[in-house]
């Protein structure tokens, strides 16, 4: 097939439908298409600053191999993770700057019409790797079209001290919210309390707050974009959060993203939730060998909603349609999403990045260390931000404005009654969705 046909297919209404309409067998469409970069093409990718050095190395190694194979230079620009959003939004709307962006959460939905349709590639990659998980797919599909390639979820899981849990009288980690509360009470009684951030922690604070809400069946937004936070489920979540907060180490309402790591590694808290980086901080420090030995990880407990639901940090890659070399960009993504290379990258990320397609769960990294196991489920338990409403500017704004984090913090610290906290959150969310 010639490139022109492919480009036409991409621009068409639905790559897959068009492919079958042209009489191409469906099985053939599952093969990842190839793209021929434009003559003299060069690319710029804007990505977040890597958290794990070996992840960066793996990504760059794949990129170098692409350059060697195609002659297309790829410049990888790094921005601190919170700066990617404004930079990408400006690039998209001004129509210049990087050709591709590795962005967070619902960023692609802020400028969906400024992005190249990658449906053909995304469906092929998904099909070749056991299909995309629903959560990461939700962050990439707009009006049935892929505006981004789901990349990975930065998994969040509970990290706890096995010996402290046993000392508190638990031989197994409880997997429901009621048992979890009992565990936290017992830990506090033993002087080895838990701690989750109620401060303005962009990552950990939002992860915890969304888990509290969703595990109890609450939601910020209804399907029709009306604010749905005022519900019995939310009240139950707040009530639960209050009881849990009472067992925490004092001071969690001031915690930013790093505080729980520090407190855990110093032995001040025995249970918190974090990415796998917490474990590696202990493991890579000989002075903390004892703690590293004692760390166990587990997914956050299941609440009344009956299933494991979490936010996790999610990232995807989009191509701006202002790029001069769309074919080269497609070729680059096809290259990076090649099953072998993607697996090499996921392995490099050392359990920090959970692949967005189901096939990547077979990556040996997930079984190489039992600590990694809960993080393998990140993409499966992931629920998009702003559930159950549509993604977009409003869902992004509500999270950036800490509406949910503030709601729980107001209520658990007693600054506002549950009803007032909910009313404040509803009002602020309504501002964005209004």
């Amino acid at each position: 097939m010639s490139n022109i046909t492919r480009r036409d297919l991409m621009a068409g209404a639905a790559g897959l439908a068009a492919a079958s309409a042209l009489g191409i067998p469906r099985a053939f469409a599952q093969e990842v298409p190839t793209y021929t970069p434009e003559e003299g093409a060069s690319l710029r990718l804007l990505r977040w600053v890597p958290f794990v050095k070996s992840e960066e190395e793996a990504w760059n190694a794949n990129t170098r191999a692409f350059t060697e194979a195609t002659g297309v230079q790829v410049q990888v620009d790094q921005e601190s993770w919170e700066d990617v959003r404004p930079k990408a939004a400006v690039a998209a709307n001004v129509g210049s700057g990087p050709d591709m962006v590795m962005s967070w959460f619902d960023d692609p939905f802020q400028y969906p019409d400024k992005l190249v349709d990658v449906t053909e590639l995304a469906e092929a990659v998904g099909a070749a790797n056991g299909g995309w998980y629903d959560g990461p797919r939700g962050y990439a599909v707009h009006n049935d079209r892929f505006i981004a390639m789901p990349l990975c979820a930065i998994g969040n899981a509970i990290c706890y001290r096995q010996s402290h849990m046993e000392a508190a009288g638990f031989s197994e980690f409880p997997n429901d919210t009621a048992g979890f509360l009992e565990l936290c009470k017992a830990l506090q009684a033993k002087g080895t309390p838990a701690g989750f951030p109620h401060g303005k922690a962009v990552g950990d604070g939002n992860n915890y707050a969304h888990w509290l809400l969703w595990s109890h069946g609450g939601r910020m937004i209804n399907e029709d974009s009306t604010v749905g936070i005022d519900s019995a489920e939310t009240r139950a979540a707040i009530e639960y959060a209050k009881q849990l907060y009472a067992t925490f180490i004092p001071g969690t309402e001031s915690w930013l993203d790093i505080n729980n790591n520090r407190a855990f590694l110093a032995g001040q808290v025995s249970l918190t939730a974090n990415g796998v980086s917490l474990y590696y901080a202990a493991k890579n420090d000989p002075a903390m060998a004892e703690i590293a030995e004692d760390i166990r990880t587990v997914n956050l407990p299941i609440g009344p909603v009956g299933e494991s639901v979490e936010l996790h940090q999610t990232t995807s890659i989009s191509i701006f349609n202002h790029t001069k070399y769309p074919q080269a960009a497609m070729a680059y993504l096809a290259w990076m999403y090649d099953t072998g290379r993607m697996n090499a990258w996921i392995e490099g990320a050392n359990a920090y990045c959970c692949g967005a397609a189901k096939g990547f769960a077979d990556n040996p990294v997930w079984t190489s260390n039992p600590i990694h196991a809960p993080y393998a489920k990140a993409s499966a338990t992931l629920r998009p931000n702003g559930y159950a409403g549509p993604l977009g500017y409003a869902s992004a704004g509500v999270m950036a404005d800490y509406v949910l984090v503030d709601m729980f913090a107001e209520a658990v610290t007693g600054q506002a009654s549950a009803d007032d906290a909910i009313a404040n959150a509803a009002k602020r969310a309504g501002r964005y969705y209004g």
Partner: protein
Amino acid sequence: MAGSSRGGLIYWLTESRNGLGLIFMLPAAVFLLCLLTYPLGLGVWLGFTDARIGREGIFVGLENYIWLFNDSVFRLSVFNTIFYTVVASVLKFGLGLWLALILNEKLPLKNFFRAIVLLPWVVPTVLSALAFWWIFDSQFSIISWVLMKWGLISAPINFLGEPWNARWSVIAANVWRGIPFVAISLLAGLQTIPQSLNEAAALDGATAWQRFRRVTLPLLTPIIAVVMTFSVLFTFTDFQLIYVLTRGGPVNATHLMATLSFQRAIPGGQLGEGAAIAVAMIPFLLAAILFSFFGLQRRRWQQGGSD
């Protein structure tokens, strides 16, 4: 002819007083317009729109301001900003003046101390904020640790977790950082006061307090006016310290207008609303400037009288 009229223009521009003046004024005018007037005007305009990052807004009139007026987080941030500015400025002035007076005396190692005093001002704000972050940490605070070692308290102080503790903590950090500016500036002012005035007053039998109250303070007032104007402006628009220490938490108890403006405008993408918050700071700033310029510089006040 066109040629000669152009020649005439060049002649007028280069040879006449007004023409040359215009040319010399041009860089400053361009600078003012492009780098000061335009951004300020744009900010004011954005405050009247619903612009988001990367998306042109449409004019919505006072909608942003009406929403903000009813927004409890914004109202809290206004209270926080005023409280923060007033308390920190008063403390900085009191302690700064005191320090300046001490440094103005004949001390051993005077120059050494003067240099030391400047240190908090020299350290980049972000670095000193990070240091305070550790000092105020809910688990690892050195203050809590020392007090616990002495047996004065049994649990760490929740510096940044309890709203009023957090407010006082960020004020303490701001004061520590702001004192050198006030102290050194006032010290410079003190040294411009002729020694003979103090000596004459002393010969007339004035006590130390009377000399300070009737000689030093009136002569220092113009400097105080300028220094405190700047100090108030710096404090009112403070951002880095709050952002590093609390990001406005706990539950927005330390959110200043500047930090809220940033949170809504850049990570939140609501450029229009963020600009409106920033514009809402202008009246307060103007009031502070007008007060110090027209108030503190009044001769009557300077001479210790009243209107």
